């Protein structure tokens, strides 16, 4: 059960709908490649919808952090949407909950981007 990514554009924001697992070997590399691909196309406002991500490990958490810093270093914004309880808890334990801009409503999340 690997991760699936689909992307859509709404008002200048790229929403990546992720589903499945973000783990070492099962999604971390996919996520990294997908974010790099968006950046190479100049799409720097990225909203990661994690609502259907049912599992994430330390490698997946690290990949979220790397995506966040990579996008920020290129002058963009990466935000998280619809955390499951498991992912929410993991981000709290690892103190990353305050690092990420985390949203639970897509419309207001899109409106929050500076673009």
């Amino acid at each position, binding site marked *: 059960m690997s991760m699936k990514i689909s992307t859509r554009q709404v008002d200048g924001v790229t929403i990546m709908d992720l589903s499945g697992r973000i783990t070492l070997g099962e999604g971390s590399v996919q996520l990294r490649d997908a974010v790099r691909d968006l950046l190479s196309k100049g799409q720097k406002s990225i909203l990661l919808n994690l609502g259907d991500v049912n599992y994430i490990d330390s490698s997946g958490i*690290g990949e979220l952090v790397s995506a966040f810093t990579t996008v920020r270093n290129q002058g963009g914004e990466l935000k998280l949407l619809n955390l499951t309880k498991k992912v929410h*808890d993991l981000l709290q334990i*690892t103190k990353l909950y305050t690092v990420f801009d985390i949203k639970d409503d897509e419309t207001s999340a899109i409106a929050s981007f500076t673009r």
Partner: protein
Amino acid sequence: MAGPQVTRISYTLDSSLDSVSRVEQTAEQLAKKAGMDEDELFRFTMAVREAAVNAVLHGNAYDPDKRITASFENTGNSLVIRIADQGKGLDPDTLPDPLAPENLLRGSGRGIFLIRSFMDEVHFKLLNPGTELTLVKHLGTAST
């Protein structure tokens, strides 16, 4: 039902992600049999998975000539998992604190921290060569 009898399973596996999956699945089955609720099961299974990843990736570095061993035991009071690699050895005291402000944005280094967060006891033993991690989860308690 599980009853008071001790259950033990052990494997010797190659240094691959398939081995990580096998260890993870065995941990999940053990936790389910022990009656863990969903949240506990998630945390337990994740800790065991992280230990297996640590052995395969950081310990053996995917070396096809090196093996990991994993043993699973339900003592009746606790689940005890031992995972050993044949790598150069891990000194847990040298690991950076992933919660320190200067480390928060690092892309790695959270595995051992999560293991410690989710297990009741974690023990490191240096082998020659390699490292053995012993993870203990007391049954009927919640760690977080």
